[in-house]
């Protein structure tokens, strides 16, 4: 779709994209213990980017996010693997998690969890893979 051909879709998606991304962020953090998590948050974010690509075009998405999504996938995998392998250095079984309660400036007492870092890896991997697939198919006309 050439740029500027659908003014409604473009203006609505300008707002909606941020709502979706905010919801993805919520899903990401709520994932530990209740439904949500890195996987679904990743899909949701990719959905937001897809909406952007539909409303404008793929070039716009590339301009907004000038990253190589294949490398995003790889970084995600690396983060997830390193978190899992971290347990090896403490003599714990592979993938074992650790957590603790910390006093943070704005949030008060917060539970911090290594599983969250693992989830971040999952998130990045999912966004990377989905976007690579979408952009590859999108370009191939």
């Amino acid at each position, binding site marked *: 779709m050439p740029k500027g051909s659908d003014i409604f879709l473009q203006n609505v998606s300008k707002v909606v994209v941020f709502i979706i991304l905010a919801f993805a962020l919520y899903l990401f953090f709520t994932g530990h213990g209740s439904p949500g998590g890195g996987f679904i948050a990743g899909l949701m974010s990719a959905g937001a980017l897809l909406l952007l690509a539909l409303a404008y075009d793929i070039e716009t998405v590339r301009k907004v996010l000038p990253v190589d999504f*294949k*490398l995003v*996938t*790889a970084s995600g*995998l*690396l983060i997830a*693997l390193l978190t899992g*392998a971290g*347990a*090896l250095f403490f*003599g*714990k*079984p*592979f*993938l*074992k*998690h650790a957590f603790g309660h910390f006093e943070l400036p704005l949030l008060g007492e917060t539970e911090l969890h290594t599983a969250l870092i693992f989830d971040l890896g999952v998130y990045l991997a999912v966004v990377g893979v989905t976007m690579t697939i979408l952009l590859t198919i999108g370009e191939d006309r």
Partner: protein
Amino acid sequence: MNNWVVAPMLIPLFTAVLLIFLNKRLRLQRWISLISVMLNAAAAVFLMIQVRTGGIQTLNMSGWAPPYGIVLVADMFAVLLVLAASIVSACCLLYSFRGIDEDREKHYFYPLVHFMLAGVNGSFLTGDLFNLFVCFELMLMSSYALIVLGGTKRQFRETLHYILINVLSSTLFVASVAYLYGATGTLNLAHLSLRIAESGQSGPITAVAALLLVVFSVKAGLFLFFWLPGSYGAPPAAISALFGALLTKVGMYALIRVFTLVFYHETSVTHTLIGLMGIATIVLGGFGAVSQTNVNRILGYNVIASIGFISLALAVSNEDALKGAVFYLVHDMIVKALLFLLAGILVAETGTERINRMGGALIHSPLLGWMFLAASLAVVGVPPLSGFPGKLLILQGSLEEGRYVIAAAGVLLSLLLLYSLIKIFILGFWGEPRHPREAHWKQPRKLLLSSAPLMLLIVLLGLFAEPVMPYMQRAADILNEPSIYIQAVLKE
């Protein structure tokens, strides 16, 4: 708990991810790949020593005890195969440094190989049926990419077959896993075995076992092999060698594991079926190999026929036969990789895959010719080479049980394979050279060097079969006596 168990899976995964970042730097990729596979082999050896002295090693992932969590189990059988897979892939990688064009290398060839290795090693080591499915998928996903890499017309055609058939069988796999979970309430292999032994292998469970047999048979190329010769011939030799050596063997491993550990009660149904499929595979695969004139297709049918032979051992399932199966499986991984690599050189140098258009290759490269002949003799099972002890044990095992038809099929296999491989040797290597392109025959020396370790291993494994045998014995003991495995997994 022993964290070393995860190493053969973790090392390739790490390497694969690392190599994605280094995509443009081919030289570095090659070195890292090779070092990683060697580290993997070292880890496998280390694990093997631990298993020999300390018995089966297990690792409960993230500390969840079985049957609730996922457990990795390194018994002698799994570790032997992990070691063989690492050695084979090291040689295939060495070959691919020269045998694969730069374009393929730049398009994530090395990361894909390592992802596949992670899947292969994971399948060997896992103690959980669903986890086995996941590792299978990891292995298959990478193999889809590897088989189409390069994108020639032939590759696209064969990839379509390959993906369709594998997606179908993966669907069946998940379905049968779901049935099994519904019927028994567990997916941990050891726990599954315990539950089925307690409640008896009822009709529905045997039906699920038959479904799993179909699934693994598709992956292994046992009877349901129609897709195999074409697909394995399409990609370049280094990739075909990896496929021929590893992928079907993983299917075979899964068959042996599941039908010795879990579904061993109704042998009159399942194991008879396996035996019949094995005999059919030998006959069809053997005659397939004889009838072809394309080098890669002949080797493809060779892979199939050998799988049929190993499944005969599973059908007999006594001590000797299983010991032979372990030995033969290790031997087959090595020798099939070697054959594919050597044939790859032959095809590259003569410029054709059809044996009746070749000829006189022996003049250009005598070493290649004699190595090919030696590898062929190893496949057939001529004594000083590694094919012999395994084959002997399987035949001995089937004769002990009075299964003469099975033994006869095993002998028939040798004859057919000998004929098919000698045909390549006679038409390809003997006679006058049809392509007097002397200048073109420069590459093989370095490519041959990469397959030399495999050749050496075949000879050593045959000559020193006696000292190696205790390891095979240990592996076969666990296959014979499921309680050893169950205790090792569930004790903690």
